[in-house]
């Protein structure tokens, strides 16, 4: 029992910080018409993280933000109209597979050919930009037995783009006059890490948030396949075993929970009141996660990122988002 009490005590300060930020975001958004609480949550996190910083005692609790994000996504399954997603599913899936496959190859060529970035950094950047941001950088780094410095360098580059696209995409979507579904799918295939994709989607509209998250989940589920492909391509230096074990190891397990919840909710087992209550729990978890996302965005760290990786990832982002934009406008 003392172990449980100790674990709670260790996490309490950070959880308090996340809860304080989420409550403040809700109050501010409630007082200012048109302001989305989740956007304010990220802004508060960025503000606190880059001024007073996160006290050491709060770090374990703040680190739970990704668990809140993934649990919020599992519960988002209850808000998903399976029929609607199944109708658009094949189109969105084809788009995801095409963009990830084409994007990976394009990013490798751009990084090596245009910016003279060697491997494995080129592959880490390509994986981070094409699949699921920092978690893809870390997973592919593990597969390729990359040095810690290479992984940190690539992850910092991806984080820089996460912060910029989090603001730029919703603005661009408004300017382009995209529908919620178009924006969600566009952000879901073009942006990098899962948290910023969901945050940008919900900043645009609740419908866009759902589409962005579902599209991003489809993209994340390809990580195992890409990890296997990279370990085969780099076979001579690979430290990891390719095959079904690796596919499963890199598969985001919370995606299964999202699917189960979506099926349960769509079979009519849950009352409208229960669905609304689950939606509120999901919103609360997203608010906590987005305060943590904001706290993790460190402007000082981003200044240290080099020009070549920024150039390579920027070229990739511009090309992929332009192709994806044309596709969503044409297909959805």
């Amino acid at each position: 029992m003392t172990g449980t009490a100790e674990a709670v005590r260790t996490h309490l300060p950070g959880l308090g910080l996340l809860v304080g930020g989420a409550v403040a975001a809700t109050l501010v958004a409630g007082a200012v018409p048109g302001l989305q609480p989740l956007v304010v949550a990220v802004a508060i996190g960025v503000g606190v993280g880059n001024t007073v910083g996160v006290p050491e005692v709060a770090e374990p609790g703040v680190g739970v933000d990704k668990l809140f994000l993934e649990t919020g996504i599992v519960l988002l399954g209850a808000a998903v109209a399976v029929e609607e997603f199944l109708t658009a599913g094949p189109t969105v899936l084809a788009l995801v597979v095409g963009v990830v496959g084409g994007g990976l190859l394009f990013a490798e060529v751009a990084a090596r050919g245009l910016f003279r970035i060697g491997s494995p950094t080129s592959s880490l950047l390509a994986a981070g930009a094409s699949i699921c941001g920092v978690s893809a950088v870390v997973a592919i780094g593990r597969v390729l037995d990359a040095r810690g410095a290479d992984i940190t360098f690539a992850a910092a580059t991806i984080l820089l783009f996460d912060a910029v696209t989090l603001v730029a995409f919703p603005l661009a979507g408004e300017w382009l006059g995209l529908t919620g579904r178009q924006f969600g799918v566009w952000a879901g295939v073009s942006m990098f890490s899962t948290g910023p994709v969901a945050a940008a989607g919900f900043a645009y509209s609740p419908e866009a948030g759902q589409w962005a998250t579902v599209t991003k989940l489809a993209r994340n589920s390809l990580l195992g396949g890409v990890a296997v492909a990279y370990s085969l391509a780099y076979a001579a230096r690979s430290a990891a075993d390719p095959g079904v074990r690796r596919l499963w190891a890199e598969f985001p397990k919370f995606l299964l929970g999202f699917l189960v919840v979506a099926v349960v909710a769509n079979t009519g087992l849950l009352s409208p009141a229960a669905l609304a209550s689950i939606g509120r729990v999901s919103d609360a978890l997203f608010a906590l996660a987005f305060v943590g996302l904001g706290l993790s965005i460190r402007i000082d760290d981003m200044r240290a990122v080099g020009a070549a990786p920024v150039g390579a990832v920027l070229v990739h982002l511009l090309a992929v988002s332009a192709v994806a934009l044309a596709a969503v406008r044409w297909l959805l």
Partner: protein
Amino acid sequence: MASDPDDATGSAAVDRWTALDRGWQALALGLGVVAAHLVGQAL
């Protein structure tokens, strides 16, 4: 996550939980919330 024996907290439940992959933790928490709602509406 924390599967290193040095990280053991002294509580088997906490150690088992922290050793789980974060994706499994999220899946368990999410399904737990949904199960609680199902039980709540059945009572």
